[in-house]
């Protein structure tokens, strides 16, 4: 490398666009951040990686004025700045796209893009706003979205782009993305990636918070790895390997992410025949044997989620025949499905997976309150003991049991949602949608282990996932889906990533 280049790199690190120095933040007794420093150059994409609770979100909040740090300095353009409210950060061109999208479905795309922009004058020229919005969408590679359409009609991926466009029309110099791909399909992720790369080419700096390691390597220039509120590594992505990154995040070497597959064959344990979910899935037929994990996979809207929900009894207008362990499971009757051994672990944890306002232990024993007749007295002491035993089996630390469930990490919430089903041996089939969405690497491996252990006891799991690495890693049988129909089913080992992606994107070309 030439000396000139070296010098250039040095001056860039000396005069970065943004630099945070020695940031510290304490909540009550918890030190969320300790001496965190970070720089961001113009046109750089920097990944912030770390497990849940590593301090990523707090760092972002400190940067955007949502929380005030106790210690440390923030420098922008060589001048020290103090942000006390989010408006201050916006005025300096720092904008956050948070995990929860804030799109107003009943407003037009155009209105959504300009929503909340501070620079908008009271009397503005609509034509100019239109032109700038259209321009911004084009820059994001989303020129096909019509400005006058309702935002509610857009897919999740498109909404994400609208949200980014909203930040760009605010003259954003530093864009912060918090887990932007958590709910996107692979195709949409691809669109987002190229949009972000084109932004980088235009000089926008990006802080990119993610769990997904693949994205770090595809997109980012530098990575700041956080653990327990401190920075454990700050390196160029080119100098990192995937394993090294995982090791840095976890603070230890990760064993096998996925447990062994279940190879043995047996009689059909669970079968779906000619299942139809109007508008979502058509003529689905599947079967699996004891001990198997079957995974339905495809892009967003392929119908996999709806098949799972229908089996759980949560779709009222589905038709078809479902049998489990020799018994018919009627459709549209969740309570009957439960009595016959079907359990559902929702992908939407806060909304229908767990009771976030109740303590963790109550979530683990919640099924007891449902199974028993209403007049039966409950013995809280016995229940707490049962919850403690279940927590052990679900690898959840006991000291978390009295904690409000909403204050736990996604991984621990998922352990509650799964663990409550394994207590009494009555569950035969567990249904899951996106079992590890938004869950960090360490907890993921534990959840996969739990799933496998459950199946080993003569049960089965039917899950839907759009995380293809997960699909290949955990499933014994994979059913690829495209536009509501099953393309093909594969046993483990007979499927690779290329084939999978071909199936779920353009299956009709497969035979050609």
């Amino acid at each position, binding site marked *: 490398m030439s000396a000139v280049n070296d010098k250039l790199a040095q001056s860039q690190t000396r005069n970065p666009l943004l630099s945070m120095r020695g940031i510290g933040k304490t909540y*009550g*007794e918890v030190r969320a951040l300790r001496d965190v420093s970070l720089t961001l150059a113009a046109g750089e994409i920097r990944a912030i990686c770390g497990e849940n609770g590593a301090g990523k979100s707090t760092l972002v909040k400190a940067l955007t004025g949502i929380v005030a740090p106790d210690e440390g300095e923030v420098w922008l353009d060589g001048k020290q700045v103090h942000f006390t409210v989010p408006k201050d950060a916006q005025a300096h061109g720092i904008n956050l796209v948070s995990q929860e999208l804030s799109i107003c479905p009943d407003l037009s795309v155009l209105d959504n893009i300009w929503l909340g922009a501070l620079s908008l004058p009271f009397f503005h020229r609509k034509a100019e706003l239109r032109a700038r919005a259209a321009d911004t969408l084009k820059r994001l590679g989303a020129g096909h979205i019509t400005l006058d359409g309702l935002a509610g009609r857009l897919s999740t991926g498109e909404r994400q782009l609208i949200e980014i466009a909203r930040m760009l029309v605010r003259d954003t110099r530093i864009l912060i993305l918090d887990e932007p791909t958590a709910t996107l399909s692979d195709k949409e992720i691809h669109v987002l990636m190229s949009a972000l790369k084109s932004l980088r080419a235009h000089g926008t700096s990006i802080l990119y918070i993610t769990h997904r390691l693949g994205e770090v390597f595809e997109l980012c220039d530098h990575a700041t790895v956080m653990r327990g509120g401190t920075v454990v590594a700050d390196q160029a992505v080119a100098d990192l390997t995937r394993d090294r990154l995982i090791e840095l995040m976890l603070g230890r070497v990760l064993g096998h992410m996925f447990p062994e597959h279940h190879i043995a064959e047996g009689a059909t344990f669970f079968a779906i025949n000619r299942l139809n979910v109007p508008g979502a899935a058509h003529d689905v037929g599947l079967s699996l044997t004891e001990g198997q994990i079957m995974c339905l996979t495809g892009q967003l809207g392929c119908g996999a989620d709806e098949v799972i929900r229908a089996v*759980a*009894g*949560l779709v009222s207008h589905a038709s078809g025949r479902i049998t489990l362990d020799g018994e018919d499971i009627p459709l549209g009757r*969740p*309570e009957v*499905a*439960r*009595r016959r051994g*079907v*359990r*559902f672990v*929702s992908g939407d944890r806060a*909304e*229908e*997976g*767990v*009771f*976030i*306002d*109740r303590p963790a*232990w*109550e979530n683990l024993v*919640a*099924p*007891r*309150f*449902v199974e*028993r*007749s*209403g*007049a*039966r*007295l*409950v013995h*809280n002491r016995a229940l*707490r*003991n049962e*919850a*403690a*035993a279940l927590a052990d089996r679900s690898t959840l630390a*006991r*000291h978390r*049991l*009295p904690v409000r469930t909403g204050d736990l990490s996604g991984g621990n919430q998922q352990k509650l949602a799964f663990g409550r089903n394994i207590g009494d041996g009555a569950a035969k089939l567990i249904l899951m949608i996106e079992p590890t969405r938004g869950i960090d690497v360490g907890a993921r491996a534990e959840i996969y282990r739990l799933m496998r252990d459950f199946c080993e006891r003569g049960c089965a799991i039917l899950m839907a996932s759009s995380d293809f690495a997960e699909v290949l890693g955990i499933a014994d049988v994979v059913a690829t889906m495209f536009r509501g129909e099953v393309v093909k089913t594969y046993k483990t080992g007979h499927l690779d990533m290329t084939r999978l992606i071909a199936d779920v994107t353009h299956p009709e070309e497969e035979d050609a």
Partner: protein
Amino acid sequence: MNSDTDLPRAAQPDFAALKARITLGNAVTLLAVLVLAALALATPGFLSMPAIRSLVTTVSFTGCVAIGMTFITLSGNLMSFSLGASLSAATLIFVATLGAGLWPAILAAVLFCAALNALQGWIVGYFRANPIIVSMASFAIITGVATAVTGGRGLYILTNVAAGLKGNLGPIPGPFAAFAICMLIAQLILSRTALGRRIVLTGTNPRAMLAMGAEPWKAVVWAYALAGLFTGVAAVLMAARYGSGDLQHGIGMEYSAIAAVLVGGTAIEGGRGSFLRTFLGALFIAVLQSVLVLRGFSTEWQRFGMGAVVLLVILLQRK
């Protein structure tokens, strides 16, 4: 037995935690209680025996309705504006069936009131109708039908079969004893039965209940039925006390009950609350009413005072 299966108890309360608990809301609540207590003690006649007896009786009546209201609030359905009308109708049923004996009349009134509200609970829970609208429609229907049937006149108790209900239990007034028992039963149902836990879980997240294969609408029906049941108890106590069944008995009752529930600190969005809170709330409201009456405020100003208190509480409940 196995002490290691016990959960760790909460750590020793330390100063920081204590400080964190003293929020603006807590401070204002404490201030309100102190101001009211001072006002009450400074009001001539407040500490007289008749005033206290009347206070305790009022607490018992509104308290029983407030217990019912608490079940509805806990189940995630905000509140019912028809409990007062249900109470009025139940006093009429009680007096009308008194000819068959005291216990049959009590049973008839309480079950009628429970069924009337269970029906509303079914409409709210099964059809996911807006609970406020349903209760307002029910209020109109119950009041309308009851007025048409009775011609707007009250029914009077002409015998002394129900006299036992207004006597004392030792030094404790009968209605208060009944209210205290109701409170114990309600708390038992809430915290120690599977049904009670179902109502609370449904209140915090009905969708999670459905996904778990529970039937949230059934818990809602039961919450409303219990609301009707405890309101029915209030109806019996009031009819016995005033010697009549009358549409006037329940007027404003639901409002006092809502105020009691809210002042007590039960979360309006459901899933969090207790009957001790409701009792304290009912006590606060009754003392406030009593002070206003003793200080010679007109009914209009009493209503103003109650309305202001409810608004204040809603503002303080904001997290």
